[in-house]
């Protein structure tokens, strides 16, 4: 069973093989969790979204069409689960995210050399990138999907993938520059959320909900 393709395993599952779907989960859980973590920025949300993604995949197994690769199909479901989770989280949250939550996602200390930003700083900066861009960044630059497959996963045109990738990298680079205190780093699109520096850390925290930066400003 271990050399069966993902598509074969899904077919076996649909034909009643009780092990097949579990094998698929074992194969893909780490990637799907990683995807959700990078998109959502919090471990708790990522775990919830990962579970929802696999449950959704289980429920929709019968609707899988073989025109697409299994990974395309699964990643689309996972992106949707992460988006839903972000929406729920945005609606339910009454308290802004604290630095601790970001630190949990990347407990290592900041990189003392400063040449490469720490995972903490990158993850935090990624959260400040608009959600649509973030999904493309994660798919293309983290997971290495070609433009065409990212387009298929996100169900958007290839040109849109390229455009979002460029603008997403730009936004991320600028967020990092701001968090590193580089001069001349303040330039940014008006549509992008404002960056607020967290006290005592180099992390830029916050979520993409527009209400939150305002809340934080009031605190300062």
């Amino acid at each position, binding site marked *: 069973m271990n050399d069966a393709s993902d598509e074969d395993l899904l077919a076996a599952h649909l034909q009643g093989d009780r092990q097949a779907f579990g094998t698929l989960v074992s194969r893909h859980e780490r990637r799907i969790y990683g995807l959700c973590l990078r998109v959502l920025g919090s471990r708790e949300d990522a775990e919830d979204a990962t579970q929802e993604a696999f449950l959704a995949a289980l429920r929709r197994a019968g609707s899988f069409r073989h025109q697409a690769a299994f990974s395309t199909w699964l990643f689309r479901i996972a992106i949707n689960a992460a988006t839903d989770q972000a929406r729920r989280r945005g609606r339910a949250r009454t308290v802004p995210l604290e630095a601790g939550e970001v630190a949990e996602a990347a407990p290592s200390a900041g990189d003392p050399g400063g040449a490469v930003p720490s995972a903490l700083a990158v993850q935090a900066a990624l959260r400040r990138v608009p959600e649509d861009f973030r999904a493309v960044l994660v798919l293309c630059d983290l997971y290495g999907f070609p433009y065409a497959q990212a387009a298929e996963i996100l169900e958007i045109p290839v040109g849109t993938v390229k455009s979002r990738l460029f603008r997403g990298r730009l936004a991320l680079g600028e967020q*990092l520059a701001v968090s590193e205190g580089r001069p001349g780093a303040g330039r940014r699109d008006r549509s992008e959320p404002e960056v607020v520096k967290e006290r005592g850390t180099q992390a830029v925290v916050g979520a993409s909900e527009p209400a939150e930066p305002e809340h934080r400003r009031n605190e300062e």
Partner: protein
Amino acid sequence: MPEHSVHPDREELTAWQAGALAGPAGARIVAHMAGCAECAGVVSAVERGRAALASLEEPELPPGLHERLAAAIGREEATVTPERAAARVSGGTVRTRRTRAWTPRVAALSAAAALVLLVAGLVPVLRHFTGESGTRQASGDASVSRPGGAPSAAAPSSAASALPVFAAPGGFSGRVLRAEVADDQAIRSAYAQAGAGAPPAPHASPPAGSGSGTVPGAQSLQNQGKSSGESAAYAVDQQACLAQVHAKAPGDARPAFFVDTVYRGRPATVLVTRRADAPDQAELWAFPRGDCSVAPFASERVQIPSP
């Protein structure tokens, strides 16, 4: 920067950064950037972003997540009902499932699957069978007589001590709950009431009298005979269940109703609560069927939009 130098567009910059723009076009960009701080800044920020992402490593799977996923998948697979399975399985796949072997085990598996489908097909997923216990006879329409959204006829104090009980012989899970809250008025109504007011007092005294705080098993599940063969009466001490849950989630859980069901393959009494601090979250607490003298053997949290 020379005024006549046109900024390269995004595609040109991308291509140039990827090393795919050689020759005069590439040279033009190099020349432009030498004199254009804005474009140089864009290119440098884009590269910084790309490199930062490339430096991120794939995170480890958190401890326990694999087990959590396996449990959730197991629950989900245990609660598949034929209507829902049919709704999501194409006709061709269904035919394939019945006729074509995949493994040598397929005959046994198919027979087992067919039995599960047959059994599940006999009974609705959730069948309401009693309202407030102790004060009413079990009745198939106790909740139907209570219009959805309208205030309940029952006083809050009595509601606190006797929650509605539903039966789900085909199995129950967070997903089923979510679907039923969306689809079933009685469930939705009972669920909404848990989120509406103040949390019922966990230590409210059960009303005096015989059967106080317990739910007599109902015999109104006409369809249950063939599926499980036993529909024996059972009673559950609701206060004990509430106390067990409050011990696990102090002050956080508002009880909604009970479900007499099968949870992850075990006969179970499931208490559904809503979280006071997160209106969109419900929790399921699965006790051995009829027995709240022990802690729940499983619990599950599920996101449900407020009805």
